[in-house]
């Protein structure tokens, strides 16, 4: 369990931003990751639940998901693309997805997250609030930042809902966190493809040569070579599925 010095629940964005900029103050979303952290460094928790960040809105082919929307809410929201709903469901089991938020998931950058991979192929942008104000940043850039949790708040995730999307994964069991997964989306200007289990975060890859520049680490579930093999196989299958859906 995390070491918690204090708990605060700001009522507005300004207060929240001010608090998280303080030393050893961290934003708390659903808590499924932070509250269970084994990190022994004592921290002040700044709970974001009091902020107006839960809405899910769709307009003009774009979907805006408030960062504090839970995976359960996304899964049950018929306005969300099936790929986002499905990946929200597979991200966590029933007793945790009611707590975990999309903002927390994005902030974690979990390399095995199929939800993040789905967001990537939907051209997700992250609306961020920091001392310079609000800005929209491509999700892959946010994932590439080493640690920005103490300086900015994720307000929402905005994505393109068009196109067809498929997912292929290999795990030890059907509901296991995939060793490798590939999510692909076909849209008007071509394919988007994202892969999990091959880098420090889910990554976008070139659908024609998905393994280029990948250097996955090995672990007990799959060594580097095997993971590369899976990327090739699963990427090919996703394209076949999308082409079959034409």
């Amino acid at each position, binding site marked *: *369990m*995390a*070491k*918690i*010095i*204090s*708990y605060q*629940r700001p009522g507005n964005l300004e207060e929240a931003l001010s608090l998280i900029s303080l030393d050893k103050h961290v934003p*708390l979303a659903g*808590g*499924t990751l932070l*509250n*269970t952290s084994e990190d022994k460094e004592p921290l002040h*928790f700044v*709970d974001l*639940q009091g902020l107006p960040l839960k809405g899910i809105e769709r307009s003009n082919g774009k979907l805006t998901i408030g960062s504090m929307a839970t995976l*359960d809410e996304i899964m049950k929201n018929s306005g969300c693309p099936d790929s986002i709903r499905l990946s929200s*469901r597979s991200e*966590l*089991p*029933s*007793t*945790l*997805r*009611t*707590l975990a938020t999309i903002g927390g998931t994005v902030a974690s950058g979990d390399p095995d997250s199929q939800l993040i991979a789905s967001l990537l192929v939907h051209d997700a942008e992250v609306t961020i609030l920091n001392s310079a104000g609000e800005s929209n940043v491509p999700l892959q850039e946010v994932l590439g930042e080493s640690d920005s949790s103490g300086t900015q708040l994720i307000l929402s995730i905005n994505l393109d809902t068009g196109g067809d999307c498929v997912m292929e994964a*290999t*795990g*030890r*069991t*059907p*509901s*296991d*966190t995939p*060793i490798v997964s590939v999510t692909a989306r076909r849209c008007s200007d071509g394919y988007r493809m994202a892969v999990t289990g091959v880098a420090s975060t889910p990554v976008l890859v070139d659908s024609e040569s998905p393994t280029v520049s990948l250097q996955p680490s090995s*672990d*007990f*579930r*799959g*060594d580097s070579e*095997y993971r590369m*093999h*899976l990327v090739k*196989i*699963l990427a090919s299958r996703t394209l076949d599925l999308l082409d079959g859906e034409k």
Partner: protein
Amino acid sequence: MQINIELNGQETAVECEAHETLLMVLRREGMSSVRFGSSSGETGASAVLFDGLLASSEVILAAQANGHSVVTLESLNTDSSLHPVQAAFAATGAMQSGYSVGAMILGTLQLLKETPDPTEIEIRDMLSGILDRETAYVKPVAAVQQAAAVLRGEEPEPFRPLILTPMTDGTNPVKVDPNDSPPKASDAIPRLIPSSEVPSTSVVGKPEVKVDAVRLVKGNPAFTADFDIRGLLHAKVLRSPHAHARIVSIDDSEALALSGVYAVIHHENVSRIKYASGGQSYPNPKPHDQVSFDNKVRHVGDRVAAVAAETPEIAEEACSLIKVEYEVLPAVFDELEAGKPDAPVIHDEVDTVDIADRDRNLVHQIFAERGDVDSALKNADRTYEQTFRVHQVQPAPIEPHISTAWLDSDQRLVVRTATQVPFHTRRMLAPLVGMDIKDVRIIKPRIGGGFGAKQEMLIEDIVAHLAIATRKPVQLELTRAEEFYASRTRHPQTLTYRTGVDSEGNLVAQELKLVGNTGPYGTHGYTVQTVAGLRGLSSYNCDNKRFDCDVMYTNIPVPGAYRGYGAPQALFGLEAHMEDIALDLGMDPIEFRRQNWVKVGDEMNIAPHLGEQGTIEEELDEYPKVMSNGIEECVAQGSRAIGWHRRHDESWKSPVDRPHIRRGLGFAFCMHGTSIPFLDMGGCSIKLNDDGSFNMLVGATDLGTGADTVLGQIAAEVLGVPLEDIRVYSSDTDVTPFDTGAYASSTTYISGAAAKKAADVVRKRLKERAAMLLDIEIPCSIELRDRRAWAPDGRSVSLEEIALDSLHLNEQEQIMGTGSHVSPDCPPPFAAQFVEIEIDTETGQIEVTKMIMAVDCGVAINPVTASGQVEGGMLQALGYAHCEEIVLDDKGTMVNPSFGPYRIYRADEMPKTEVFLVQTMEDSGPFGAKAVAEIPKDGVAPAIRNAILNATGVRIDELPFTPERVYRALKGD
């Protein structure tokens, strides 16, 4: 800080600290139904309805809950009746230990509120966050369906077995018609194939609701953690970061100086008394190679020190303040490496004796032979040799190990503990704390699963030492990570079978060479490997058999007992080996086995030579024989249910729309044991109450298996009363009779026989008293049924009248009886295990799509609880075969000590599962019963392995069948 929550509809103000979770606060508020499983929330045992949604309360800070609604199971307990959802969980046998049933019931309430008629997929999704090692989720799904029907106003069908017509005459095989299929029924309903040899009974053989059902479905205090005790201190253990090291120095001064710390114990202030922690009968197998705290550590996670403090957090901080200087030593993890000359010596201390060869880390050499194996192999028409590797897994009960110790007002040591072996624990604990056995009392409340991990005196000595040191009550509850690397696990082994076969396909010789890895301590090292030899060489007739085994010390987390106890390892090798021999001979694999498997009247010719207390070399005058065997009916029922004829159907095996998929079917023949002959003993006492009901005290340990219910049914049958008139209590070493404990598939057979004997005594006296009241000269002519004693002429007297007469009116006496039982027999249950799988040939991913087990367990005293045992056993066996594994890095540190990366099956990914109970009449068992608890662990792994072979032609002789391993095997790597 103060928080305000709406708790079960009541505005509630609660004081809490910033770090405290909602689980901690709820338990402090008396919500005993909300239970700890892991701090990650992965088990779901702590789940509540948080603003109406199912959520694990152990990952919610109490402060986060401020201003929110929280609903726990207690909200349903407004009176003594059951809510329809609670009633459905009780009626369908949907809980075994019931540790997580509160979360399941709350999830059901939420689901049915949103979706009154949910699909099975929706139900399984709801259950996906509540891990269950016991039911395989089969009956919980049925419970939700039944509850939904009731809440929709429908009348559900009574939950009872589906009676099937036998397909065989019980002895001879039949050819199964491919067009024949079994009657359709819910997976949760046991299919019961009756035997004409089994007499009719009133309570035995009936799907009675568990005697502890109400307590469990209401979430009432039942488990060790549920009982408050004033002034409780909390313990934490400082564990070794090294796989092998000497403790050069230890400085506890800073820890002791920390406010709130009451005691720090370690090797410098705890007596060095040798013991072996395995919960086994006296005398515990040697070597006694453990002490409570040693000056040497032998695996990552080994004990270094323990602290008692006011809170778990203070105790943990104190542990971090203990300064330990280690001399790190080389370590060895592989059983084949441990005996090499350059391997480090793990037990170099002088006070551990009875190690076979300490310089080679050889703990035991076990050898037994019948006939002349070498000669038979030499003369065999064909010989086969095959080596298998099996890995280390953890039982993973959802309730971690937990014990509370205190000194009572007479200064006796009392330990309330989650144990399978209360009486062994008392005997083993007393000398460690310098007390007499009479001054130690062990109380076993309900247990949230054990599966062998709790057949160990694992932490009771720690809380006892601390309680004595502080003169205060002390509780220790392991974390989930500790449960993985500092509890007990299944032994890894390397097994080599050599088999000789004659020209007719008969076995003429079979040898099992086994190298067992017992980790750093012996505990169950001797007996598990012995049972592996026994089980690995008992299934098939063969005059020449040999077991040759080395048991090695290594520096892995400690192996011990785990349900199946050596059999799952041995039968994986045996059933794979037999499959391959059959195919090489060009024989049908089942037919080849049938030709060789033991049948009624056959001798179990190596069993007596491989005993728990040692091997026997000389030939015996007489060998035990198989007296009941329903395997032919099991094979017939299982074959039909799985569609065994499809194993050669290429159109089925290679689906045209999924070119990378191959399908396969696999089979394994399973033979297990029932108790340990001449060793396992159970006791029971029964007394009559004023109203004609009975109190029954048993030493047997119900882990959630339904043992209390089954023993109650046996007594009720004898006494002619419904089960509700038997109040069962187990177990407390001060109060209940002795029992060796819950292991070795012994409880129904041994403790059940004890219950029957005790009931027979009471029955005899009831008849005598009834004869007095009815003025009948021949008491034995009286029958007990329907709560009355009936004379041959039709007159009767109620048991209540007998009770009132005997307790208050005439020749007063307490009618009571005791019984104890030990058996010279060990009648084997048999089973046919079938699986259906799909393999992705490009990735190596396997999906097990169906598991069928047809079991001959004699007479199932309660078919619902018996089928639940089979379902849960298959789930664990599936994990063993497919995904679960303890993975160590090169320093011996477990890299996956949590449920996600360790991976146990969830409700939303389970294959279809069906259970067939094939009755046979085992005359040596109570009402014909044999064992059922462990045999479902034996066949899944070899059946999957054989299904892979059927699907792809590839043999994989190492577990588990993870995607990469399968992929590389398919590639030929």
